[in-house]
């Protein structure tokens, strides 16, 4: 501790020495200036207040039926339950890692329920709620987190691409896919999910450029959950992210990301716009990552509890439930049924994960190429021979000895 204290002081001294005086004066001025250019609370589209009150928005009208409202509620509850179960499975050692969507249910369910079957989705790695709406079996999402595969579903079965881990890459795939949709003369939309952190990646900017220049039918859906691991969103931009779109020549809008109705309405408008040939649009869903970045992360290192607590009051599920209750759209039977469905889902997922077999060793050599590759064939054969050598035993003493050491 003493050493650390000394280091801190000496570095402070260094900074204020020599030209340092002016430097720190300058710095203060700069900070002030930056703050001044950022409006305190930009407008966001909201259709449902945290208290469960319906509000109107001139541009984004929506009139969901009771059935639809109950459906959205069910989606969110089941998604949250699935997510919690996955977190538990990670704690139990069944998964190597889990990236929780806790708090982002409205952004995901609202946007995904705005899509048609023909629309195509390019997710990042946290879109479990979107996957749910697309009809991807939740257990399939767990394969990569368990470490049995790097993507366990057929993207074309549900028009839901594989999770993409390298930040921002998928926005270009979505744009290219949308260019293809246009060439086909099809009238479907493409949606690319990404985070506030991802907004800094050059690939995302290039996706904006390409989609604008070709007027491609792609919706960029940014879940600004205000954190990129330990970095707050201000590390990525000093103005609200939705404003970026205008400079590329298409509209951007900020929506209350914890308001499932607003997310639904805005995404509906954006996809319809895309389908009718009006090109790309950026939606910034202003939300909050209630949990850790992933199960490997420890947010207490960088985040104040109060911040999280403030956001609990804006919980996306709670507010829809308040509406349902207020308008008497959800009786006990309905709520109990969802509870039961949640339990069943959790149980099914738990069992499926535990039963998930490890892949065969030789899977390493599968699907590296679609048309084959001589080197892969050679290595496959050599490895098979090597594995076989353990079975035949005596002549490979080194190997056997080593196994014991292991």
């Amino acid at each position, binding site marked *: 501790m003493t050493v650390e204290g000394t280091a801190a002081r000496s570095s402070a001294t260094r900074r204020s020495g020599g030209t340092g005086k002016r430097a720190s004066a300058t710095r203060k001025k700069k900070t002030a200036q930056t703050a001044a250019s950022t409006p305190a609370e930009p407008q966001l589209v909201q259709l449902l207040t945290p208290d469960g009150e319906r509000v109107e928005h001139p541009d984004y009208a929506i009139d969901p039926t009771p059935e639809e409202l109950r459906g959205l509620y069910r989606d969110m509850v089941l998604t949250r339950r699935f997510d919690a179960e996955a977190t538990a499975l990670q704690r139990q050692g069944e998964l190597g890692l889990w990236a929780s969507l806790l708090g982002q249910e409205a952004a995901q369910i609202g946007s995904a329920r705005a899509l048609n079957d023909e629309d195509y989705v390019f997710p990042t790695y946290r879109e479990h709620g979107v996957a749910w709406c697309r009809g991807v079996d939740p257990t399939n999402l767990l394969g990569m987190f368990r470490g049995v*595969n*790097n*993507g*366990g*579903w*057929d*993207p*074309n079965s549900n028009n839901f*691409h*594989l999770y*993409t881990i*390298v930040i921002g*890459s998928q*926005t*270009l*795939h*979505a*744009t*290219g*896919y*949308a*260019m*293809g*949709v246009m*060439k*086909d003369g099809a009238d479907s939309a493409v949606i690319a999910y990404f985070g506030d952190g991802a907004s800094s990646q*050059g*690939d995302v900017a*290039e*996706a904006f*450029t*390409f989609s604008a*220049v070709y007027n491609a039918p792609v919706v960029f859906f940014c879940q600004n959950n205000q954190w990129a691991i330990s970095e707050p969103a201000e590390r990525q931009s000093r103005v609200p992210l939705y404003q970026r779109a205008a400079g590329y020549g298409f509209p951007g809008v900020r929506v209350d990301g914890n308001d499932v109705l607003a997310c639904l309405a805005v995404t509906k408008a954006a996809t319809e716009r895309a389908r009718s040939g009006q090109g790309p649009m950026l939606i910034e869903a202003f939300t909050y990552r209630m949990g850790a970045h992933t199960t490997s992360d420890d947010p207490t290192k960088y985040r104040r509890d109060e911040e999280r607590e403030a956001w609990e009051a804006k919980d996306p599920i709670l507010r829809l439930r308040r509406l349902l209750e207020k308008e008497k759209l959800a009786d006990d039977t309905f709520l109990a049924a969802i509870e039961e469905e949640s339990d069943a889902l959790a149980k099914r997922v738990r069992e499926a994960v535990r039963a998930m077999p490890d892949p065969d060793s030789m899977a390493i050599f*599968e*699907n*590296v*190429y*679609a*048309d084959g*590759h*001589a*080197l*892969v064939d050679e290595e496959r054969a050599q490895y098979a021979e090597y594995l076989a050598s353990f079975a035949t035993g005596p002549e490979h003493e080194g190997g056997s000895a080593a196994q014991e050491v292991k």
Partner: protein
Amino acid sequence: MAATATGTGTATGNTASAAASTVSKMPIAKALNQSLRKAMEDDPKVLIMGEDVGKLGGVFRITDGLQKDFGEERVIDTPLAESGIVGTAIGLALRGYRPVVEIQFDGFVFPAYDQIVTQLAKMHARALGKIRVPVVIRIPYAGGIGAVEHHSESPEALFAHVAGLKCVSPSNSSDAYWMMQQAIESDDPVIFFEPKRRYWDKSEVDTAAIPGPLHTARVARTGTDLTLAAYGPMVKTCLEAAAASQEEGKSLEVVDMRSMSPIDFDTLQKSVEKTGRLVVVHEAPVFLGTGSEVAARITERCFYHLEAPVLRVGGFHSPYPPARLEDEYLPGLDRVLDSVDRALAY
């Protein structure tokens, strides 16, 4: 050209019926252009994308006339952003298209390197084979044209090391014509390295031939004393070296590798088992160049046949030099022959 050379390409003629009209001599550049045209005619899903590929026809005119004939929907001038080009090409491939991407010069492929290495190369495996991304990336590469920085590099090893990619380079017009179509037909991503300083070299193309497989090497000249292995621009240099050696009574075999991933080690092995000596030549820096893999693996396969270590001739471990020094940097006839001498001296 020496009497022992086996012709200009791997395409084995099936030309009895229509020989007169299907065989002609043309530069590599034109063979590539014709091949792209043919691929676009045969398959409406084939697209051309890149900077200046449209009206201009590319800075080397390889896509000349294609936008005029196939329209802006199929020959696409892109924004100036290589990651964007490759990334959107991947998206188009996922939608069922077969994009052929032009990178303007070798040194400008690196902004796209992430998309190529982490997405294009791995997506098929990531999806357990359920999706395919048949993208061809054309790169005019290597030096010898007196250009400024970044316009003369040979980055093939940086792609060949990466599983999921295939890498090829033609050395003559026939291969240019056939290998391009095969690359486009391949369901795997192919990095197609075009030997830019040989673009204007003419040789025969038979458009009715039946080409051999894309990833096999070809014995371009038979010999008994030593094997020279090369691909792309260096094949010509090696053939010249073999011809020069012949005058001195040395019989050199020249193998045109054609593919850098996979490498056809069987053909190389067969040759080295006969000659007992191997010199690998490429423009790329020797250190961790493709020649290092050839040397390592052929030594393993032919340990008891080799009478000399496998020698390598290539670029130095320095950035590609300014144009006035490139003749010193590039492996030319002299440096190849020097290594041949060294190998024969063992």
